[in-house]
């Protein structure tokens, strides 16, 4: 059984809890043995490095040093969040390339009694491990409920495939690992041209109209390809496309209802696991209509109902007049 050191990251503790729940539910079925990095701290996301550059590397350095202490049989540190993955991988790569930086980071780490030798651990993303270590044959052998008839748009976002200093992916703009995984589960996979376009990251906190446009074009793209749902591997992407979808509809006067789920949730469904064990039902845009199309029924969740009612009311409030908004000719609400 392969064992990996696991760096969960802050999002998987809460806002991406369904991701963590679905990882927990499927890991034993695919022989994925995980050991948490003890007392890990936040990776700094895209914020720490905007204020301090050396401290940002030291922040990640503490995680790498703690992980290195647990190296025993494996030296692979796995992250499921793309920002965590990038920050861990990037710091290790920069420390390997720049001896002065490594020395300074170690001077800082020494203040906490720690040391990290660059290159001690190998940082990899969960998707990479599932597709390349565990392999699609193992995945296929576990499928008892193929996702036949489910049209999925695989959405990777930015930070898993770029800048890819360690050459982990086949292509930095059009990776296919998740496409292949979804096909192995029996799903119908869209060749999604926007698969690595940006969800806006923290832009929802900086400038909403800019963020809304970045989110809109992704949802619109998937909708034009008639996707039943978007499948992703990044907590930030999931949050932006899912939790802000109602706001985006209000802003652009659209009516998209594209659920956004984690790839591990679909792996679990194809393995025949119960939807609630996979954290399904905790998404803002209800995934039930899409899943019932392939015969998977989720119990009605009260919270989801209430949420849908709020969203419906909000949509009715839209003003018919106002400034012209960017609109595509064959938009949902016009064409149907």
């Amino acid at each position: 059984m392969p064992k990996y050191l696991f760096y969960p990251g802050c999002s998987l503790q809460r806002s991406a809890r369904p991701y963590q729940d679905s990882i927990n539910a499927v890991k034993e079925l695919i022989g994925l043995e995980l050991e948490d990095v003890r007392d890990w701290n936040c990776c700094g996301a895209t914020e720490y490095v905007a204020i301090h550059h050396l401290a940002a590397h030291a922040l990640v350095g503490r995680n790498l040093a703690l992980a290195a202490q647990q190296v025993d049989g494996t030296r692979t540190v796995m992250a499921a969040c793309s920002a965590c993955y990038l920050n861990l991988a990037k710091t290790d790569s920069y420390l390997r390339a720049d001896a002065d930086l490594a020395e300074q980071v170690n001077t800082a780490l020494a203040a906490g009694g720690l040391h990290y030798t660059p290159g001690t651990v190998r940082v990899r993303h969960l998707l990479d491990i599932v597709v390349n270590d565990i392999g699609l044959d193992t995945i296929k052998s576990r499928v008892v409920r193929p996702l036949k008839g489910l049209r999925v748009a695989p959405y990777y976002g930015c930070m898993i495939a770029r800048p890819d200093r360690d050459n982990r992916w086949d292509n930095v703009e059009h990776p296919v690992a998740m496409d292949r995984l979804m096909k192995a589960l029996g799903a119908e996979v869209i060749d999604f041209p926007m698969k690595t376009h940006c969800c806006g990251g923290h832009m929802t906190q900086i400038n909403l109209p800019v963020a809304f446009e970045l989110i809109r074009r992704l949802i619109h793209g998937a909708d034009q390809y008639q996707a039943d749902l978007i499948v992703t591997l990044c907590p930030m992407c999931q949050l932006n496309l899912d939790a802000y979808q109602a706001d985006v509809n209000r802003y652009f006067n659209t009516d998209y209802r594209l659920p956004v789920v984690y790839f591990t949730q679909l792996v679990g469904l194809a393995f025949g696991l119960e939807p609630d064990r996979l954290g399904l039902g905790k998404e803002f845009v209800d995934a039930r209509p899409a899943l019932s199309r392939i015969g998977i029924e989720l119990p009605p969740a009260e919270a989801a109902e209430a949420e849908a009612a709020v969203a419906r009311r909000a949509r009715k409030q839209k003003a018919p007049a106002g400034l012209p908004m960017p609109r595509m000719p064959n938009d949902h609400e016009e064409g149907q």
Partner: protein
Amino acid sequence: MDDASLSVRETSPKSPPYTAHRSFLEEVIEATPGDSRLGMCIQCGTCGGSCPSAADMDHTPRQIFAMIRADMREQVLRSNTPWYCVSCYYCTVRCPQEVHITDVMYTLKRMAIREKLYDDSTAPDFSQTFIGYIENYGRSFEFGLATRHNLRHRPFQLPAMVPMGLGMLTKGRMDLTPHRIENIEQLQKILARAIELEVS
């Protein structure tokens, strides 16, 4: 400026400016970890053409790099350009000269913050609030971050955010209290030492 560099300037007026004083270009390169390759920019514009938020920027990345070379220090640091960078790394992987563009944007953010040269404080404050939670708890804290940031920067939009906040809570996707790591003192010592080294 020491005597030697002064004399160079006086005796050879046509010598490039970098022999006389440290140019802004050199300053940015020095403040960017590793080899940023910023000096290699050929002004092709692939960066701006690949940027999802270029339309909202005061200057495209290509323009910013030209301005850096032209020593337009204050105009560069006042530009909203780095603050609209969403760290998607499209420019970085497409740049034919392999300039570490995203890293340079982070450098410009740090410089603008240090010298308080930004017109809109929304993004700098967001980063500051975010890292405040890391420094106190070792983890990010979404509820605190969202309420504090939005109270300060867009209080009138708060009512519109209530449904999402409630949704996050009822779906078990948000905590009301932060989680502190066990060895927070160790992390604080490490960060304090790193910040000390950074300014020295």
